[in-house]
């Protein structure tokens, strides 16, 4: 008697568990999207990329029809999160929000994805790196630095937030275009903050960073920017020339955008492209991105995807020259 009762109870409970477990899945409806979409940010929570992704969330419900759930999967310079998305089901419910690091990481070591696994949905922003030096240093522009380094090889050190980071690559790109990369020493700190402290304290000569991190120091005349990487000058510093204007075509910028798996059905890709285009062009989004200091630059699917492929190839050459290339 007792045995039967416990068996029945056991079966009922097991059924309950299975039911709850299946709550994690929902039966696919015909219309996409029919359940919340996961967007993976392969960086630490609270960091710049995470916050930039968050500003897409309010518009998602409106234009996409389903909420956007941001999850952070940091590690390996963005590769852990990218691999997760590359390996997940290509049904349009797992997206990736990442930066130029997507193109960089495969050349630095073994990662679990190929560039070709991804197709760009929308580019959201584009940030140019600057090279800044202490205000009282003897260099006012890139040429000054170039000449000094040629006369004093091995004595010029510049800070960046970590090996393989986009700022590392962008800074190296600038010095490479100046022809002095091999005579400078790149100094990887744990993030931007110790690097800024090191420049201010005179321990290193320059830093490769994004303007917001040092904006106040520049205003207070502690640091000065000697060049901007990328196609155009920064609105905050209209008198500072780009490297290209100074004769050194360092055009690499750090973009951020949304990606999906290549094998996602084309109709879903189209829907995603359209929805994100709407989100990004909406006024509330524009306001939020201004507040964040993210220059809004948009590219649609085909442009963004081809940019990804292009940058990836540029990476190969650049990294070989930097001595970081592997494989």
């Amino acid at each position: 008697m007792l045995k039967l009762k416990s068996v029945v109870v056991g079966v009922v409970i097991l059924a309950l568990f299975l039911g709850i477990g299946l709550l994690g899945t929902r039966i696919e409806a015909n219309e996409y999207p029919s359940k919340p979409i996961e967007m993976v940010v392969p960086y630490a929570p609270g960091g710049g990329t995470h916050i930039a992704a968050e500003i897409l969330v309010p518009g998602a419900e409106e234009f996409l029809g389903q909420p956007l759930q941001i999850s952070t999967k940091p590690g390996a310079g963005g590769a852990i999160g990218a691999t997760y998305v590359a390996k997940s089901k290509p049904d349009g419910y797992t997206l990736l929000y990442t930066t130029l690091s997507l193109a960089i990481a495969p050349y630095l070591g073994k990662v679990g994805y190929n560039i070709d696994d991804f197709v760009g949905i929308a580019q959201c922003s584009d940030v140019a790196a600057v090279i800044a030096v202490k205000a009282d240093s003897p260099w006012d522009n890139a040429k000054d630095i170039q000449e000094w380094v040629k006369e004093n090889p091995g004595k010029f050190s510049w800070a960046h937030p970590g090996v393989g980071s986009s700022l590392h690559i962008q800074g190296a790109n600038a010095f490479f275009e100046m022809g002095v990369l091999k005579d400078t020493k790149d100094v990887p700190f744990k993030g931007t903050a110790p690097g800024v402290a090191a420049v201010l304290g005179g321990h290193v000569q320059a830093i490769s960073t994004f303007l917001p991190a040092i904006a106040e120091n520049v205003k207070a005349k502690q640091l000065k920017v000697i060049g901007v990487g990328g196609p155009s000058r920064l609105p905050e510093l209209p008198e500072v020339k780009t490297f290209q204007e100074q004769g050194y075509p360092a055009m690499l910028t750090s973009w951020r955008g949304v990606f999906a798996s290549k094998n996602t059905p084309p109709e879903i890709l189209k829907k995603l492209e359209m929805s994100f285009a709407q989100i990004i062009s909406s006024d509330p989004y524009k306001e939020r991105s201004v507040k964040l200091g993210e220059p809004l630059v948009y590219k649609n699917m085909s442009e963004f995807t081809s940019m990804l492929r292009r940058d990836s190839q540029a990476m190969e050459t650049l990294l070989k020259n930097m001595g970081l290339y592997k494989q």
Partner: protein
Amino acid sequence: MELLDVFYSILTISNILFLCLGVIGGMIGGALPGISPSMTIALLLPMSLYLPTSNAIMLLIGAYQGAMYGGSISAILINTPGTASAAATAFDGYEMARQGKTGKAIGMSLAASCSGGFIASIMLIILAKHLALVSLKFGPAEYFGIMLFALTLIAGVCGDNLLKGLMAATLGLLLATVGMDPVVGTERLTFGLFNLYDGFSMLSVFIGVFALSEILVQLRTPGKDLDTTPEILDYRQDRLTFKEYWSQKWNILISGIIGCFIGILPGLGGSTASFIAYAEAKRRSKTPEKFGTGIIDGVAAAESANNGVCGGALIPMLALGIPGDVVTAILIGAFVAQGIKPGPLLFTQNLKDVYAIYFGLILSIIALFIIGMLALRFIAKIVSIKKSILFPCVFMLCVVGTYSARGNLFDCLMMILFGLFGYFLRRHKFQIAPFIIAYILGPEVELNYRLALRISDMNYLTFIQKPISLFFIVFTVLFVVFSVFKKKVFKQWVSKGTN
């Protein structure tokens, strides 16, 4: 007087409300293993964007202090540091809880956290600009000097069996090298597993070596005994007395200053500060062998230091726009969004906001104290849960916590491995402290050593040429010589006495 104006405007109902909300949220986030203080602040960030400025400041600063304290709650109760900065608290805090002194431990943790936070706040208010300039004097060579000194403090932490401690420490050093080389970017000991590209998740190591090893140790007790309701001492007996607190005043003061100072240095945070303060307290103590067995000094030192970091990290953030640790990096974003621009011009342009932040700091400590005291009775009740129920639930929490950090299950598997490792360490009467401290501090020593050499173009003399670095290295050498000498003299004195 402008200062008083700001003060009166700060004391509004909504500000106090958000302050308390922040403290409570921070405490909960800090107590949950796997949810770091930076994650907690990162989650409050979006909310703060919609609030008026003073409310936002109160919310975030309250959460910061709360989280730094909250980590000690789970460290003391279940030997699971809720935050990396509470690991040092677990060394003695958990032992105290095992001896039935949970109320004392948590009370001391609260009192020390508030005191350390207060000390750092005072240092911030009086010395902000000067301390910020001091922090700029520290480049890689100088960081190397300090971290080297900190590393040699390990020898002091090793207790009686120096050799055992050193063996464990070197293993910690070795395991810390797993991952991407920080200077060159090549892989070290990753065995081709790209989940190890960033090394072991710090939580895997902490939660594994502390909590999981404890769970394994507890399995030695038969299930019957685990299933009994533990006796708790009467609340009136198991609380922190003022006398006990006052006996720690110098410890708390020194540890708070250490915490503040480490906070000033960008790139170093709560865990570094609490370990250094712990090791330093042990070195200073008249009864160093008691550390690790449940001595209140250990808890006081660690907790005072990690809340000292809060004030300290704000110094370079406000004065230079450079965040002193991970949390202040997020705070900068929050403040900028509110229109406060931390940096050299802040003190001249937005003095009112600076005062608001100062008051926020002081008030947050008061709020933390009050809320902490109220929560204390409730928290300590957790000890009265049957172990047979508590530990499996703790285990589940450990898994969830470890998973939360990087969102992958591999870290949980690593946690199991470290749990087994920690278990064997304990079975063979090794102390966990040397291993953990070497694991955390080792990479700092290595990184700064290599960066200093890179900058100076392989000029080894750079460490001696830079005055601050020279100072710390000489200090370290003297310290080592002195301790060996002291031990030898002590031994001779003992043997003379017994003759």
